């Protein structure tokens, strides 16, 4: 390889050495390494590359101004609020249904409100199963009374 070939590939060679990958074939790498061993001028070119890289790395890192960071954080908070909104709406819908299943109440409560106290049903909060049994019992009583009334008539 010539000095021209080496200089053209010097940057990739240098970065490959540093990062463990050259993007050059192993033959090319070996040829460049041999050339560098023998050529002081190309070694000096490599040293100049190294210096410019190290100078760039030495530059201090700017710090983002506080309001910039706060704005980015606020953006996230707004997004998180929007994420929880549909869940709050579901919770509100569930709450607006007269008497939800206990399981539904728990599911919505985990997202929208603190965990509920152990289930204690007030008269207006009794679960549907209780109401169905009550309804059937009242129906049976009504039917019995009807049958008795009709029986007396005939």
């Amino acid at each position, binding site marked *: 390889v010539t000095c021209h070939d080496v200089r*053209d590939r*010097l*940057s*990739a060679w240098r*970065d490959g050495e540093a*990062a463990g*990958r050259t*993007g050059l074939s192993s033959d090319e790498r070996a040829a460049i390494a041999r050339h560098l061993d023998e050529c002081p001028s190309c070694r000096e070119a490599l040293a*100049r*590359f190294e*210096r*410019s*890289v*190290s*100078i*760039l*790395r*030495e*530059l*201090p*890192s*700017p*710090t*983002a*101004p506080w*309001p*910039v*960071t706060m*704005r*980015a*954080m606020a*953006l*996230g*908070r707004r*997004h*998180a*609020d929007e*994420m*929880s909104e549909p*869940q709050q709406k579901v919770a509100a819908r569930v709450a607006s249904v007269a008497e939800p299943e206990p399981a539904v109440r728990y599911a919505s409560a985990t997202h929208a409100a603190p965990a509920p106290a152990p289930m204690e049903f007030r008269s207006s909060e009794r679960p549907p199963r209780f109401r169905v049994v009550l309804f059937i019992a009242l129906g049976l009583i009504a039917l019995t009374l009807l049958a008795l009334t009709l029986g007396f008539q005939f």
Partner: protein
Amino acid sequence: MRTDERALLARLQQRDDPEDWSDAWETLVREYGDRVYGLSLRMLRHPQDAEDATQEVWERTLRGLSGFRGDSSLATWLYGITMNVCLTRIDKGTRSRVVTTDDPPGDPHFDPSDGSPDAERCALSAEARVAIERALGELEPEFRAVILLRDREDLRYEEIAQALEIPINTVKTRIHRARLVLQEKLEAFRP
């Protein structure tokens, strides 16, 4: 992608726990906020433009999170968005004080790290820093982008190609040319 990055991404892509999502977002901003701003500042070379660009980067990040499949590292993806925002702003040329080789930096004392705690620990003098920043600013934006990603953010060529969506050979050529230009300008600051 590193394990901690993968875990962070998973938290940012779930929608079941807004509180955890919010914590993950704050971690992301704390982790990468300075670097996104620093890259924007060195690309756009004006604090107000860099602030606007940084906000746009976070907005785009938020919009893009659900579609990001983790093909690259989170950092590579974020830097890609950052460079895309900056290069678009430079192309538009209206909102940023664009610096090209034809239009040298307007502020001869531009120093992105001025006042940062890092600057006080830096071995380079303030004068040298200004001169180096000026040399960086005189690079064409596409060259500045690759050299910042390579020599400041330590991305590999493949990662730069991914971030900027350009062929890897273009990355190699741009890095090489950018270094040749910088090398000439930085000779005065030999350690």
